[in-house]
């Protein structure tokens, strides 16, 4: 289990970006971090990866403070634009010792990506696919996805949703930030609602349907429109 405890961060004196944020990400579940823009969702993912400094807080995986069991999939392509898709994959394969080339090749085929296409020329949807492919091929138990569905066409969203119902999910704990949940709503196990850097609500999505007859989107409206 990935455990985030007491995460705090403020920029200068002006505001608390994260205010005592604590939650867990279990294996074999899709946990969704929901918030409107600028609520600190991405900052939490970056803080988990140690990419931004925080004022306080601990990140543990199965009780240990190591980060090499977590893979981060950023929302923008971090691969240089002059590389081809094939070169980007080869580059990552050399860099990550646990790299699973079989997963990379299967997903290339599934996403219909061309090895010779330049990263710079890819559509936003295809960039997101390359990012996801890299994330899954890194072969780590925990995967952080930063807005994998933002600004992407319907069919690409459906392909990404398929990944969440596939065997690639087995043994993985996924934490995803998003506010576009329509295509993946039925696949989400848990939802964490964030507002002004604070967790204001945590729900099990099946329980929410069973006990209250509410969808995740109903809950979003309640939480953010009151």
């Amino acid at each position: 289990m990935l455990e985030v405890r007491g995460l705090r961060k403020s920029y200068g004196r002006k505001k608390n970006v994260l205010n005592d944020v604590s939650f867990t990400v279990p294996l074999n579940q899709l946990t969704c971090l929901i918030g409107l823009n600028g609520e600190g969702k991405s900052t939490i993912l970056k803080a988990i990866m140690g990419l931004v400094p925080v004022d306080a807080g601990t990140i543990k995986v199965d009780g240990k403070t190591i980060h090499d069991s977590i893979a981060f999939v950023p929302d923008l392509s971090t691969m240089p634009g002059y590389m081809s898709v094939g070169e980007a994959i080869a580059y990552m394969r050399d860099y990550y010792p646990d790299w699973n080339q079989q997963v990379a090749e299967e997903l290339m085929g599934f996403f219909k990506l061309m090895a010779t296409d330049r990263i710079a020329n890819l559509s936003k949807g295809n960039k997101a696919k390359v990012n996801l492919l890299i994330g899954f091929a890194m072969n780590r138990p925990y995967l952080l996805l930063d807005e994998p569905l933002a600004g992407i066409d319907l069919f690409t969203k459906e392909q990404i949703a398929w990944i969440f119902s596939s065997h690639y999910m087995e043994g993985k704990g996924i934490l995803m930030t998003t506010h576009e949940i329509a295509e993946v709503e039925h696949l989400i196990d848990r939802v964490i609602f964030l507002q002004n850097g604070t967790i204001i609500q945590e729900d099990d999505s099946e329980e929410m349907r069973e006990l209250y007859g509410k969808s995740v989107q109903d809950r979003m409206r309640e939480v953010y429109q009151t």
Partner: protein
Amino acid sequence: MHFDQRTPIYLQVLYWFKKRIVMGEFKRGESIPSRRALANELKIHLNTAQKVYKELEDQLLITTDRNVPSKVTLDQSIIDRARTELLENAVKQFVDSIYAIQIPLEEVIINFEKEYNIRKRSELNA
């Protein structure tokens, strides 16, 4: 499969599955798809597929032995019970909607038979 986002997903898949057992698409005593295959086919979470199979096991509709695919029960009375349950649920829903607009039973029955026969005829013609 299209899901109603306000009803538990596992219940919708459970209903889908029961319907197939009752209709004989999954036959008595025969193997059913693995949890993984079901998740893939319906594009649902593996956890949901697991929960559905657990429910089907609890209701004795399927049996699971180690290392072999789960099978539909051999016991016809359990399948008949599921059939009755599907009918009761459908009738209950129907009555709910009819009762709400206060239509007398006789009128309901006449219209029900008419619609049922139209449906049956169009199916025969198809």
